[in-house]
């Protein structure tokens, strides 16, 4: 580890993230295996579609738990838009799509991330509710269940698409991002580019954890307080 790396996430955050991510991937793969007859072969390694269904269902439970913690953890920072800076940021699309001289500085999470989080939170919840009802459809009215099938499919469309956005931006689309969710230590440069406001505020409050430096006296808990 290089000196001067800044701690962006703690271990719990990363565990929740990866729980969510892995369950989501498993759900998507198993879901796809059931959604498309041409992908039924995906069930072969697990011994058939019925097992795939079971894997999907129980992974769903894992997903719901992860989602619960994720929402709890990130809601305050990622679930609420702050004005006017978020609006400004959105106006220039965060500088992702065209050249912008100066991207408005936003908090730890930029509105794009917030939108992604909200999409995951809302559609994830929709997937959870609809999925549970699809699991036990006989306990509900036919009309409701039929709507849940629709909702589940709709949720899939959104989450599946967002998944690739997230994948791109978390990796090659935004180099330097990945360590935030692997080691948790990121470079100052990356932070300056991506989350300058958070960097400044945290530094100002003396809560920035920099590798090789004594931690500043803490006034309060971190982001997940």
């Amino acid at each position, binding site marked *: 580890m290089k000196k001067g790396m800044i701690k962006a996430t703690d271990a719990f955050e990363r565990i929740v993230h990866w729980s969510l991510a892995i369950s989501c991937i498993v759900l998507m793969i198993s879901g796809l295996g059931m959604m498309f*007859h041409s992908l039924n072969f995906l069930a072969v390694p697990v011994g058939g579609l*019925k097992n795939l269904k079971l894997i999907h269902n129980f992974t769903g439970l894992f997903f719901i738990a992860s989602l619960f913690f994720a929402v709890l953890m990130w809601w305050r920072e990622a679930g609420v838009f702050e004005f006017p800076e978020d609006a400004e940021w959105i106006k220039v699309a965060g500088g992702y*799509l065209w050249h912008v001289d100066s991207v408005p500085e936003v908090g730890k999470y930029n509105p794009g991330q917030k939108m992604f989080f909200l999409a995951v939170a809302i559609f994830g919840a929709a997937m959870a509710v609809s999925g549970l009802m699809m699991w036990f459809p006989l306990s509900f009215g036919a009309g409701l269940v039929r*709507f849940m099938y629709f909702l589940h499919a709709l949720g*899939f469309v959104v989450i599946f698409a967002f*998944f*690739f956005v997230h994948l791109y931006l978390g990796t090659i689309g935004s180099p330097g991002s990945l360590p935030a969710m692997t080691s948790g230590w990121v470079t100052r440069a*990356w932070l*300056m580019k991506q989350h300058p406001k958070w960097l400044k505020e945290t530094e100002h409050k003396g809560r920035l954890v920099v590798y090789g430096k004594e931690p500043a006296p803490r006034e309060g808990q971190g982001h997940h307080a």
Partner: protein
Amino acid sequence: MKGTDFVKLIDTTRCTACRGCQVACKQWNEMPGLRTRNRGSYQNPPDLEWNTWTLVRFQEHENGDGVLQWLFRKDGCMHCTDAGCVKVCPSGALFYTEFGTVGIDRTKCIGCKECLFACPFEVPKYDRATDKVFKCDLCYTRLREGLLPACVKSCPTGALTFGAVDTMLKTAYARVEDLKQDGHPDANVYGDKFVGGTHVLYVLGEKPEIYDSLPQKPAVPLTVIAWKDFLKPLSLLAAGGVILGSFLHYIIHGPKSPDENGDRDAT
């Protein structure tokens, strides 16, 4: 419906509700009888069940002139041309047979129950013990051997007949004409006007709305169509779009790399 399809014609005006069909079905398909209670009706079990793929519905009906009729309707899978159940079935357990009917291969069924809600006639039924869905397959194994479906064979009065789609449609409409002459002005053919035509046709003596549990305008539910015909392709389209967009973004706009000077504290 294709010309090579086969159709079971249920002429309710010939049915005596002897329920030979109901038992013949169980005999051939080796479905058990379960303990029921009398709820004030001959109709038993009260509805189609996983072990009851066909059922005669009993209904007392007094027409406008106060004339009492006892309506009997053999209920069961309608074998739609556009079958909601086949549409939603993830495993291919439900399939269209070479006769145009809807078969079910229970070894493939994963018990997801999606078909239960996709069927406009509420036909498929789920059995908890085996975690499988059951419904009439119009005796697919018999048809393949050139045998009549068990219910059709057992029918004493000719209320159930089976044959090529054109013949059966002709028979049905001819019968309706006869019935209209014979004091049943509302007689009609039910089944050929929706879900692409069903492979089970009814000759009804009365308007469809008179009969219990008979949908007047059955259709594959809109949500199923939205799901299977719209969202399913859309999911690939959207994901594909995102992947393509990301690629374009990468090669056109380039990744959003950190500024070199931003790394000042690293030194």
